[in-house]
Structures are given as structure tokens and as C-alpha cells.
């Protein structure tokens, strides 16, 4: 059953026309002890039919520990956004954008925003911010706590 209304699907189809490269939504899941993994997969499955630039890939957190560790993922459901970059020999690049928990409600809008960014949309940060970010040498992990509504 479609989660998105036909009008929403069309709006997203139009927005995804901006994608200039393939975006991979890597979904880290586990079968037991994950209340929202099924819901997350259902939400993600709504996206590829709306653009041929969108792919969902599933990684089992229990069976593919090494792959999860490579992305620093230790909980499910987690979504990591990767994108294909012609400069990196076919190896997808990590956007370092993650979603922990089902991207429902307001978070779905954040996911769409992040997909467009990974897909080549011009970043929205000001030149002053980009300058400050270029000077960051220490690894930083930012956790932003949100709720679905």
C-alpha cells in the first residue's frame, strides 16, 4: 500500500528531477529487536519508483557486522546516504548523513532534503560557514535529537 498520496508522489517526482547523480539509501536493519525496521523499509521503498537515481540497499546489522562497522553504525534502523561520484572510480562516496529511527512525519522532509543534497543540489550554507568548516580537523559527530511530529 502506498504511504504517499498521489499528489505527494508527484511533488517528490518533480523535486527528484534535480538529482544529478545516483543516491544510495543504505538501510541497516535487523530481524529481531527492531520495532520500526519494517516501517522504515516501507518508507524507503516509496522512493525508488519516483526517480531512477534512487537506490535502496539493505545491510543486516547482525550478519554484516563489518559493513556496519565501516559506516560506524551500531543500531537499527539506521539510514546512511551515499552517492555515486564519477571521480572516485565507481566507489560510492559517503555523505556522512545518517538517520537513526524511522524517517516518518517531519523527519521524512529532512530525509528528502538530505537526498537532494547528496544528489547534487547546491549546499545552502553561507560562505562564512564553509570557511569555518574547511578549518575543522578534528572528527566531529553531531547527534540531533528530534521527534516525529
Amino acid at each position, binding site marked *: 500500500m502506498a504511504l504517499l498520496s498521489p499528489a505527494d508522489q508527484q511533488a517528490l517526482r518533480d523535486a527528484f528531477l534535480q538529482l544529478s547523480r545516483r543516491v544510495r539509501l543504505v538501510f541497516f536493519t535487523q530481524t529481531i529487536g527492531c*520495532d*520500526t525496521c519494517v516501517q522504515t523499509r516501507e518508507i524507503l521503498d516509496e522512493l525508488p519508483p519516483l526517480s531512477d537515481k534512487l537506490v535502496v540497499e539493505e545491510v543486516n546489522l547482525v550478519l554484516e557486522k563489518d559493513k556496519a562497522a565501516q559506516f*560506524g553504525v551500531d*543500531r537499527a534502523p539506521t539510514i546512511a546516504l551515499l552517492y555515486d561520484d564519477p571521480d572516485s572510480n565507481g566507489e560510492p562516496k559517503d*555523505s*556522512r*548523513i*545518517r*538517520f*537513526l*529511527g*524511522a*524517517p516518518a512525519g517531519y*523527519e521524512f522532509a*529532512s530525509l528528502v*532534503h*538530505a537526498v537532494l*543534497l*547528496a544528489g547534487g543540489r547546491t*549546499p*545552502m*550554507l*553561507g560562505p*562564512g*560557514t*564553509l570557511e*569555518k*568548516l*574547511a578549518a*575543522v*580537523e*578534528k*572528527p*566531529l*559527530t*553531531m*547527534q*540531533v*535529537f*528530534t*521527534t*516525529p511530529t
Partner: protein
Amino acid sequence: MSLAHEMAFASPNITAVAVEATEFPDLARKYHVSGVPKTVVNDEVEILGALPEDAFVEQALTAARP
């Protein structure tokens, strides 16, 4: 949320995770999340609420100081 994701995308040294607080009550407890959005950078810096870009970046990057 989008601001942190934009920062991660712009800097190879930044990772940004949107955490759905109600699904991970252990994390919400660990970081004393009583309102959202709440941003935690490297377990050191806490930013409450949504701030304008300049103020948010300024506060977040205090965690990057040596």
C-alpha cells in the same frame, strides 16, 4: 536537522545523525533530552532548540577546538 546534515556534507570530518528520540529512549536519557531539537556534538557541546546558521555553527564548532 538539515543544518547539521549540510555541515556533514560540507566537511569530511563531520558526521551528522538525526536521532528519533522516542525510538531510542536510552540515548535520549543518556543525553538528557527533554526537548527537541537538541544537538550533541562529540558528547561535549549541547545546543538546545533551532538556532540561526551562524550561531549554530559557532556553538557546534567549539567542540572542534584543540
